[in-house]
């Protein structure tokens, strides 16, 4: 199955090539920056070198380290298979948006190995699972691709905190993930990216959501030189709720792009997108948010919000919130704001004796806090506040 998929994807990419700016999803982000990176066999890294604990699943260059599973305290709640051994085509099904994206197909044709990780029915974990994605290489301009599928069976309640660590020379990490959330499952997925190297990140995350599911995605991204993230959520059955809260901190000439598509395919579902970008220097941020309410998806309640705080005259934000509604009994809203710090607020704080720099920092923190407070995982909130402090004072 996987070989057929890889061959099909390879043919697709070879026919399409790297996406041009004529495509809506790539309008403000050039794929030219990614062309120089070539697929290379990445060196093996001894997993012992990377600090983990008993709640950590370690992935090195996209491959699950099976030897770290021995100490994984939730291993009895998991079923893990190599993707090579999966023959159910539904497991590999992705949305049309992803299937028709050249870079997604490049990733599908590229990846060396991946896993299908299933959290068993009614699994309830008392602590979050930590996922560490370690990317390391010795050769420059290396493209590292990963593809893993996570399945949360009926009634499972799982929290995951994912962190990327990049070491070595500049690389391009192309990450493909699928999340299958069965009926009545509850997934809190927190992502924290704090880049310290010149790593380019392009990720595709597809969420297939069943009935009465509660899905929370929290994401904090700091200092990525280039990051483009696609999130697509299919709400396929009634009574489900999806919340996506993202905070991005960008400076210098960093470029960050969030593409979020939520498909309301069933009645009585709710969704919420909240993306805040804080931009300094010559950085750029892009928000492409879309909600599609299918015909018959009555009683949908959906809201999307994108707010951009520009700290520099040279920073740029592109915001494109969109709604497509094909049902007539829904509540949908969207909004976008872009602007500098409010001068009246700065005056107010300074008039109480707070110096200008502290007043500005206070307002930046306040802007970020409104989305941090929405994060579903307290540990992601804590990490984000610390990261924000160091970013502001850095």
């Amino acid at each position, binding site marked *: 199955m996987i070989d057929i998929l890889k061959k099909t994807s390879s043919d697709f990419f070879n026919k399409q090539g790297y996406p041009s700016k004529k495509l809506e999803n790539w309008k403000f982000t050039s794929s030219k920056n990614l062309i120089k990176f070539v697929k290379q066999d990445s060196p093996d890294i001894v997993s012992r070198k990377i600090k983990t604990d008993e709640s950590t699943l370690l992935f090195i260059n996209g491959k699950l380290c099976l030897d770290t599973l021995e100490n994984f305290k939730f291993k009895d709640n998991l079923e893990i298979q190599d993707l090579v051994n999966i023959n159910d085509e539904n497991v590999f099904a992705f949305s049309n948006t992803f299937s028709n994206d050249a870079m997604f197909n490049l990733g599908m044709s590229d990846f060396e190995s991946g896993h299908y990780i299933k959290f068993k029915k009614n699994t309830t974990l008392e602590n979050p699972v930590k996922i560490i994605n370690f990317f390391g290489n010795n050769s420059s301009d290396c493209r590292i691709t990963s593809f893993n599928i996570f399945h949360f069976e009926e009634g499972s309640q799982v929290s995951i905190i994912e962190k990327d660590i990049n070491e070595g020379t500049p690389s391009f990490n192309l990450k493909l993930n699928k999340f299958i959330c069965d009926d009545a499952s509850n997934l809190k997925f927190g992502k924290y990216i704090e880049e310290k190297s010149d790593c380019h990140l392009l990720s595709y995350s597809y969420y297939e959501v069943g009935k009465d599911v509660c899905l929370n995605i929290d994401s904090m991204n700091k200092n990525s030189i280039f990051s483009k993230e696609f999130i697509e959520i299919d709400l396929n059955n009634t009574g489900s709720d999806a919340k996506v809260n993202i905070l991005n901190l960008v400076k210098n000439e960093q470029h960050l792009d969030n593409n979020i598509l939520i498909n309301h395919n069933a009645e009585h579902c709710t969704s919420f997108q909240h993306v805040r970008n804080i931009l300094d220097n010559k950085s750029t941020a892009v928000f492409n948010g879309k909600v599609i309410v299918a015909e018959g998806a009555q009683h949908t309640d959906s809201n999307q919000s994108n707010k951009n705080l520009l700290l520099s005259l040279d920073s740029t934000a592109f915001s494109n919130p969109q709604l497509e509604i094909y049902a007539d009994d829904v509540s949908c809203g969207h909004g976008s704001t872009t602007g500098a710090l409010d001068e009246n607020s700065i005056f*107010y704080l*300074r*008039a*109480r*004796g*707070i110096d*200008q720099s502290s007043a500005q920092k206070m307002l930046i923190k*306040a802007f970020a806090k*409104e989305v941090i407070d929405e994060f579903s995982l307290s540990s992601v909130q804590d990490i984000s506040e610390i990261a924000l402090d160091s970013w502001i004072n850095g």
Partner: protein
Amino acid sequence: MIKIENLKASIDDKDILKGINLEIPAGEVHVIMGRNGSGKSTLANVIAGNETYEVDGGNITMETTDITEMSIENRALEGIFLCFQYPVAIPGVSMAYFLRSALNAHRKYQGKEEMDALEFLNKAKAILSELGLDDSFLKRSINDGFSGGEKKKSEILQLLTINPKLAVLDETDSGLDVDALRTVAKGVNKFKNENNSVLIITHYQRLLDYIKPDVVHLMIDGKIVKTGDMSLVEKVEKDGYSWLEK
């Protein structure tokens, strides 16, 4: 306490203040009344250092320090406190964090140690109680979702916490019901003593029924044209301002 000499100020090349002279000694409450657009709020903002306005001439001296060119925050630290007519809402910054930051900025300026969280909370809660506000007020974001009355009480909470030398109340009585007006007045009366001063900018007599002024000034077209006692307020209530132009 504060001495203003021949103060001239403009905004977008439009002259607003055209030579204000005003001296408020320690221990006194002064009132400025005037028509809309006469420059009252501009004067309050210029005293506080609002950089939207251009100071075109004159001096402002606080005790012995010339503050005319001083930054907004340094004026505040020197003892000037502006009770805003329209306090801004700042979502995401709690009242507790803001108040403690402001208080400790003053303490640091005065060479005192920063107040720890517990001591601060005790102090703030005592003031809240006097203003009839719940302790949960401190957890709320600055002025965010506050009613008109709560916004003005928030200003008085800040006034009593920071305890400045000069309080400038810019139409603090506007939009208040009788109960809230009494609470605000009670807060101002608690604040004032022989070592500090109060400048009240208002359109109405009703606040002055609770806070007795020592001196009343009437302002027309960017200038103080008449100074007197409480009888001036009664005349304005009765006859308006047109008699001043005759």
